[in-house]
């Protein structure tokens, strides 16, 4: 077993690829740009179709990680450049300071004294955090970090820390790795909804994205899991707008594969809290492939969930209510619904920023080449199950090179 394997990205695909390769007996290094592992799925409330919490699978992954000495990881780490060829790839990695070292026991004394409130990216700014904080309640590593965009280095936390865990002078490091193969599992980001001018995001506060809905519904989210309008009112009517950016030449020409199912899942969140709420799902095609059709059938059976075929043309605010208008291009028939809240099923965009040595296709997805193996949504849009499959297959391709 010659070379090491590098996995870029510590979301569900990266974790799976790294753990599967390490458990097969290979040395693996995982780098993650966030201060925590778990990626997008750690922001989700539940998975479709089982409506089970992502933390459940993450817990097992983290546990496996802890008992696999062959797997090492760096958070706050970004790949700057890849050179060389399959079997002998050289990678430059920037490790940004966390300012909190492994002495941290996550006791939380630092957070209590931190005077700086900062927007919480994990919650899409729907709530604040402290400049020193723990990314989430299930964070791995379970260790605080300082967000240096907001920290003013007042030093309160340093005095409060009994464990000598905070170093405000920690500096950025560049490390050079030499690996046999690289799994690129850089995942996705939600398409920027402000680009969808006709749908009112950023203009009307009760137009939110599907990822924001995940946070609203999460127990550790901004509202403690209560789904409500941004003015704190209960939901009587809500509309989900499918293909918000996806399947659209002006935005994302491809289909994001998961948004239909994600919206149906979110419809069940609303239903759980509001037994009588009217839920409208505007769609072009409902893409509930494979066994997920069962989930579609279950959601469709709910009388108060109406599926309306048609692409949404606009969202307006009329007398404090949101009005969603969909138009059928063939018939010209217009469908209007007045609602309290609109959820845009924004699509998945590859999250990777250009890295010299890694090729991207026209949409920004990672192209495979010898020794460089895309996995999960870095390769194409897919849901969690497919991402895990893709990642496991990527682990095989990676070990084939590493064993030579």
């Amino acid at each position, binding site marked *: 077993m010659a070379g090491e394997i590098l996995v870029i990205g510590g979301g569900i695909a990266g974790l799976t690829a790294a753990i*599967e390769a390490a*458990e*097969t*007996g290979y040395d693996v290094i995982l780098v993650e740009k966030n201060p925590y592992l778990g990626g997008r799925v750690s922001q989700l409330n539940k*998975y479709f179709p*089982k409506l*089970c*919490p992502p*933390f*459940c*699978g993450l*817990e*097992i*992954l983290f*546990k*496996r990680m*802890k*008992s*696999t000495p062959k797997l090492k990881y760096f958070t706050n780490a970004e790949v700057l450049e890849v050179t060389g060829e399959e079997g002998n790839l050289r990678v430059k990695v920037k490790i940004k300071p966390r300012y909190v070292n*492994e*002495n941290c*026991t996550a*006791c939380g004394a630092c957070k209590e004294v931190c005077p700086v409130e900062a927007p919480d990216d994990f919650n899409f700014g729907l709530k604040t955090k402290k400049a020193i904080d723990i990314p989430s*309640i299930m964070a791995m590593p*379970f260790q605080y970090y300082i967000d240096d965009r907001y920290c003013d280095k007042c030093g309160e936390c340093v005095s409060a820390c*009994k*464990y000598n865990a905070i170093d405000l002078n920690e500096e950025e490091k560049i490390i050079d790795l030499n690996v046999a193969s690289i799994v690129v599992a850089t995942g996705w980001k939600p398409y920027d909804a402000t680009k969808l001018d006709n749908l009112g995001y950023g203009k009307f506060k009760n137009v939110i994205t599907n990822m924001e809905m995940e946070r609203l519904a999460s*127990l550790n989210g901004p509202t403690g899991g209560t789904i409500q309008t941004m003015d704190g009112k209960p939901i009587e009517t809500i509309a989900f707008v499918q293909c918000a950016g996806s*399947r659209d030449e002006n935005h994302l*020409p*491809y*289909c*994001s*594969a998961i948004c239909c199912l994600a919206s149906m899942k979110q419809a069940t969140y609303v239903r759980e809290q509001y037994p009588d709420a009217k839920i409208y799902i505007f769609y072009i*095609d409902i*893409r*509930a*492939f*494979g*066994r997920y059709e*069962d989930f579609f059938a279950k959601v469709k059976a709910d009388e108060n969930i109406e599926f309306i075929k048609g692409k949404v043309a606009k969202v307006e605010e009329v007398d404090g209510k949101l009005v969603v208008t969909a138009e*059928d291009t*063939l*018939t010209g*028939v217009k469908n209007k619904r007045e609602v309290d809240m609109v959820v845009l099923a924004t699509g998945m965009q590859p999250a990777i920023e250009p890295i010299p040595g890694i090729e991207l*296709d026209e*949409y920004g997805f990672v192209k495979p080449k010898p020794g460089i193996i895309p996995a999960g949504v870095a390769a*194409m*849009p*897919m849901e969690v*199950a497919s991402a*895990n*499959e*893709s990642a*496991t*297959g990527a682990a*095989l391709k990676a*070990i*084939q090179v590493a*064993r030579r």
Partner: protein
Amino acid sequence: MEKVGVYICSGCDIDKLDIDKLKNVAKEEFGIEAKVHPHLCSKEGVELINNDLSELDAVVIAACSPRVKTAVFTFDGKYVERANLREGVVWSHDIDVHAQELAEDYLRIAITKAQKAEKPEPHLEEVSKDILVVGGGVTGLTAALEIAKAGYKAYLVEKEPELGGWAAKFYKTLPITPPYTQIEEPVVSKLIEEVKNNENIEVYTSATIDAISGQPGMFDVTINQNGNAVNFRVGGIVVATGWKPYDASKLEEFGYGKFADVITNVELEEMAREGKIVRKSDGGEAKNVVFIQCAGQRDENHLPYCSSVCCLVSLKQAKYVRELTGGNAFVIYKDMRTPGLWEDFYKEMQQDEGIFLTKGEIKDIKEENGRLVVEVTDTLLGEDVEIKADLIVLATGMVSTLKGLYTVKEEFPDEKTVPYKHIYEPRLIKSDEDVEVLKQAGHILNLQYRQGPELPTLKYGFPDSNYICFPYESRRLGIYAAGAVRAPMGIASCIEDAKGAALKAIQAVELVAEGKTTFPRTGDIDFPNFFLQRCTQCKRCTEECPFGALDEDEKGTPMPNPLRCRRCGICFGACPERIVSFKTYSIDQMASAVKSIYVPDPNWEEGAEDKFRFIVFACENDALPALDMAALNGIKYSPLVRVIPVRCLGSVNTVFIADALSKGIDGILLIGCKFGEDYQCHFIRGSELANRRMENVAETLERLMLEPERVQVIEVSITDWDKIPEIIDKFVNQIIEIGANPYKGF
């Protein structure tokens, strides 16, 4: 373990407890001089432990939850037990005398467990690392090639005389790599060549499997190749037997069997391979071809699921019509399902002016003046449409080759057996003959496992797994399914899928070679030992093991196969004779831990509710993390409760309950994962089994004149941290209401 060291951390508010009293527990009750450090997980703290290690067999860390600082508190070759004083006591309780008593009990439990643990040794065998691939279609070919490329030998077994499977029977295929825009020549012939030329792959065509016995690393395979038996040994298996088309003769509503010119998508492929698309009735060229989507799929009466690829297949076949006849193709669909980058293919086909795509429902298919007419209703235009057709192609769906097979006994319960809730459609069998008849329907692996010959399935014949998070993890260690046998998918997906299953098979052979288990307790070398002299052949363990690890001799005595075992402890929970134990997780250890809890004197004055004692057996995968998170959120619960983590609720033996009750514990709560069709248990049915066993316990309690409420099972999920404390407190109050355990003090 004889030499146990005890280390108490006084950091993170643990020093709010009386540390000297904790030290006294170790000293006076166990004769151990505990050491205290204010930051045990620091370098100096760990150094303190390291300095003593040579003198120790086991280390008790009385600090934070076992879920944190795990790597820091791992010491090579030493048994580690954690007493959860931080999340379990100081962060989840007001600090008072009760919290102190709780902490002391946690220390007693941890020291007892450490003392009762034994040193595990791996079960080592001479193993084969070769891998068997069953099925020679695209998935199987890819799996074999990828296994060979990883340096392992593959045996490829195909029942047909030729390799290639369905893909070899297709005229053209969808693209297998981006851009997904053009139809392509099938790749399968290239794959076949590569497989045939690879010296690390041994191919057997016209061959089926007569038997596979043994365990991972040492599966003995007997195949039947044209009547001749061939034997070989492999370490792991990839099942890639693919799919079969849904039986179109059941699709009378679409005119199949009634009109000669109604054919299936599979039949169209054959026709196209002949180079022409014609009416079957008179051989005339088919100029107008109508494709009907969801011919059986998404229909409760046929295949309730979606076959994922039929929309794309029909688009591809529409292109055949364009290329071969220059005629028109009409595709009638419910939803056009071309997810992800396949949207590009859909868009490309939309550019073709001879391909008409219409959403609609089929109202009728009839013959008018010798021509077929398709009546479509519920279209987007709001009106009914009639399309004259030379040929109607039904886009029939894919059925897993496991569907309809006799897989495992639990899917075919007899009248006496209660079916498991995760079995979607248990099929009742009445006699052993029924089983023999069922077995005639065909077979794939013919596993010589006591529980049945094939991979257990979930719904629709898809192999059972936690399919969102761990899609390849089957219920048979070393055996992994890939391709259309696992879920409906197209060729591009099959190729990807084959790699994943190949990796899992390779991983399994590497792990079992070192005596280690696989997911989810990967790397665990400890395995269950059976003290068979005391076995009463009740067969509970052999029936309940979710992984089929135990076979049986003719008397019904279990014959363990340690390399099949996933170390959940369900067998150990099942055994009424208490004869199953791991070295590091044993009946004696757990029962002693229960008995180590200090139960206050029963002669208390009225109203001394704080002398009640409760035990919560918490699944370490879901309930325990949820309790940790409750603590992090500062949610408090009754300090009268002692939480004892278990590998799985299925590993809770009723003897623990009996011991607890006879010791004077007032109530016992088991908290574990959800069960049923959408089960979350990582050991498939541990929580369901716990539930069943406790139903029996309830009867016993009533016989002993104890209230059945004293023992309860609760299902939670890991994010129910807001609810678990409430559940616990409610339980505690309920039992306090009922009154103290009358056996206290006896």
